[in-house]
């Protein structure tokens, strides 16, 4: 179990062991969607807002 700081509210976010780059995690404190941008050491950034599209 590792942890990283939420870039939105500064709270500590607990991370499960097998996190992968690109994974989206919810901050338990402020609820922000966070993207795992590095795993060793783990680093989080605010996940981009992406509208879901209806395909090619």
């Amino acid at each position, binding site marked *: 179990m590792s942890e990283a700081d939420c870039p939105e509210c500064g709270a500590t976010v607990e991370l499960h062991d097998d996190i992968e780059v690109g994974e*989206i995690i919810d901050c338990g404190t402020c609820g922000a969607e966070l993207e795992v941008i590095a795993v060793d050491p783990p680093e989080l950034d605010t*996940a981009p807002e*992406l509208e879901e599209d*209806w*395909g090619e």
Partner: protein
Amino acid sequence: MTEHDSQTRARRRQHQPADQSVVFANARRRRLRADGGQPPVVVKIGGANAVDPEGAVDDIAALVESGREVVVVHGGSTAVDDTLERMDIEPTYVETPGGVTGRFTDAETMEVFAMVMAGKLNTELTTLFRNAGVDAVGLSGVDGGLLSGPRKSAVRVLDDGTKKIKRGDHSGKITDVNSDLLDSLLDDGYTPVVSVPMLGEDDDEVLAVNADADRSAAAVAGALGAELVVLTDVAGIYADPDDPETLIESAATPKELKSVKDAAEGFMTKKVMAATEALEGGAPAVHVGDANRDAPVSSALNGAGTKIE
């Protein structure tokens, strides 16, 4: 695989209609003809493999001969699939959190996409039109920045139940149409034959990216104030997708439009979405009709199929 064959698969993929609002940044102006005549027509046809274009080609040739301005927009993703297979490139399919499955367009796939769409299909179709007496000029969305807008390189995907951001996608959302380029070609008597890719605007560069052909046609129709004819391989939009007897002939009020949207399933959802975008963009009417009937374009313009306005 015909468009019809893929209906079931498409239906399974398209659970959730997404954001429908498209705001075109460019000034939208309707083409005003000196003779006060009819607006131009944008015709969306499939690629060579999806829907046989021959009937549409002859019909469009007759329309052009009669003085109507026409812009053709074509798709052809089955031909892209064929060429990917021929080149031993395995397409990557991704599922969005909403349950929509789509092909992920990585750099290599994008290259094939551009080759097939702008090189093979556009050249074939332009040649078909020239043989039918139409002075056709093939263009991709890159040419003159014809179809442009922000690139989307990141997509949200569901990977084994885990939500992830996947980067490196080559797709985009059309927000601008260079209607001046089309106007100028139309004024000179040419018939533009337009294909994706579009021109995607990234942080510090532009690049060719994937876009949906139906939406491209809708964007062009909106920008030109043109009637849009979307040809497909069924007679129009059915209230019951499995029963041709339930063809919806027209939708002219918001309420009627809503019932068309509710009726649309599978790949028809995309047509209805495109129709909505075209109307919101400034198109006076959208017709969804059968590509394989006689005179498919003029029939659709004359009320066969489903008319949305």
